[in-house]
């Protein structure tokens, strides 16, 4: 059998496909981060915690109310979004006039609280969440066994990412969002309800994290720590992609998922740091990130 760098091509395809699945999560999360950053100029450190919250809400719905996956897919993002709206209204909105770093610090504190609270009540070993019946089993693709659920994750995230990208870049909304980031007072003076828009955006970005959480629940353990480990990688993804570009966030998310997948085959020991190495290289060559704009 012919090989590519000593790896059978089929194994390689398998790994690439798996990378794409991971990339789906990166893309969804960095998309949410990018939307929030674009609008509020806040690096939402709590993003990982809210992703975790999404998974937990799904789990709680299932275990306490018997509400299954498909409803959770709708309800959990709504709950997380509502929580985000509350956070924005009560806490974040007080910081807009200050240095953006305070937003980062505030959300960092929030992340600690949310994660800590769940740790306190549910421990860290995590809770099991079953794969929905409809998506059990998998397809034998010849080169690998693809669980149906993973296939669904790729499709769902692609659809959501594209829809969001379209809504933001191809409609007026995106221009409002970007303009309001820069000069909310003036945009207000053009007749746009900026506070509402900011709140809605934060709620939406956070709901995306919640959605990613629900999608992740059946794959990973529903654990209070699931977000904090992921979030730093997603930060790196966002730096590589370059802030201010929705499409950049999405494409980089998928791209890095793929690259990481390859690393796991060729040099697994480095798969944890490959994203950071790429980040360093990108910064050297293009300080603004691959799709970013120098400001």
């Amino acid at each position, binding site marked *: 059998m012919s090989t590519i760098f000593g790896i059978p091509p089929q194994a390689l395809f398998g790994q690439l496909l798996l990378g794409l699945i991971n990339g789906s999560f990166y893309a969804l999360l960095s998309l949410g981060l990018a939307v929030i950053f674009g609008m509020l100029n806040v690096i939402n450190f709590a993003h990982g915690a809210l992703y975790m919250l999404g998974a937990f809400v799904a789990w709680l719905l299932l275990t306490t109310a018997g509400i299954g996956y498909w409803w959770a897919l709708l309800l959990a993002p709504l709950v997380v979004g509502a929580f985000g709206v509350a956070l924005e209204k009560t806490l974040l909105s007080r910081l807009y006039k200050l240095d953006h770093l305070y937003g980062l*610090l505030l959300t960092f504190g929030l992340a*600690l609280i*949310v994660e*800590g*609270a769940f740790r306190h009540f549910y421990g860290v070993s995590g809770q099991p969440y079953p794969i929905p019946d409809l998506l059990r089993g998998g397809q034998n693709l010849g080169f690998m066994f693809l669980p149906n659920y993973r296939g669904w994750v790729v499709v769902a995230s692609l659809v959501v990412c594209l829809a969001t990208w379209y809504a933001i870049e191809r409609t007026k909304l995106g221009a409002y969002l970007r303009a309001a980031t820069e000069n909310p007072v003036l945009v207000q003076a053009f007749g746009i309800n900026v506070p509402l828009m900011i709140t809605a955006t934060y709620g939406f970005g956070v709901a995306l994290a919640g959605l990613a959480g629900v999608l992740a629940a059946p794959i990973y353990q529903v654990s209070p720590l699931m977000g904090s480990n992921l979030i730093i990688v997603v930060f790196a993804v966002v730096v590589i992609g370059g802030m201010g570009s929705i499409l950049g966030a999405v494409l980089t998310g998928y791209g890095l998922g793929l690259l990481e997948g390859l690393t796991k085959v060729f040099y697994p020991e480095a798969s944890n740091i490959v994203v*950071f190495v790429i980040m360093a290289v990108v910064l050297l060559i293009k300080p603004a990130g691959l799709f970013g704009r120098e400001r």
Partner: protein
Amino acid sequence: MPGLLALAVLLLVLIAAPYVLYPVFVMKVLCFALFACAFNLLIGFAGLLSFGHAAFFGGAAYITAHTVKVWGLPPELGILLGTAFSATLGLAFGALAIRRQGIYFAMITLALSQMVFFMALQLKFTGGEDGIQAVPRGHLFGVIDLSQPMAMYYTVLAVFLFGFVVIWRTVHSPFGQVLKAIRENEPRAISLGYRTDHYKLMAFVLSAALAGLAGGTKAIVFQLATLTDVQWQMSGAVVLMTLLGGIGTLFGPVVGAALVVTLENYLAASNLPVPVVIGVIFVACVLLFRRGIVGEIAARLGGKRP
């Protein structure tokens, strides 16, 4: 000079502290205070928020622990090597990170330090999850036996004071003045002929080196170096200390470090969830008293920054 007065008071308190408080505890406070002061040099006076300072603190701890334990170097040399390592690392990270500002800078430093974390986890000499344990304290300059608690204590105090004075001097130096100008308006500073990247990098390296000094010293005090020191939570902790005490004040980080360390000790023995309490304090600081304790006091007294 209210600043000098405050320094004198601080000095007296610290000289007397080990007779009243548990010396190991005070040493821990001192190490973190120095770490926080080093961090504050960057955020408070150059406007750069590093979210990856654990890399310098913990990196130096590993180097010091390794050189002292495995190579058998005397403690002072071990700490020096740790500091040098952090300064070098600071040079590399700084050169990358200062290409961006603000939040980007924070995220880049965070990501780079995460790289150091994974290296520490995977490299052989760091001992992975176990860390480097049972590091001998040894004899300072071959004479002073550091296994004596008081000898160790006053050594740590001396290291702390050295670091603190360096920072004090830096802030109120011609260099510090340019740093402030750059923080305020970088293009203008450039147009006046300042090569701003060099200044920022210099500040970054200084800060990294001092953080390394703190980390190396801590490795000798606790006789170990572990992943805790390089984790991103450590970077978060130092931000909290500085924020709590007062960003951009000289004494703030010291006060903040003392508070956070006390709190962690106290919480460890209670049933309260530690991260939640720390998180609440974080949020409260950001929302309610951004100037931090020392900053707030200084503002109340109506004076300038101490």
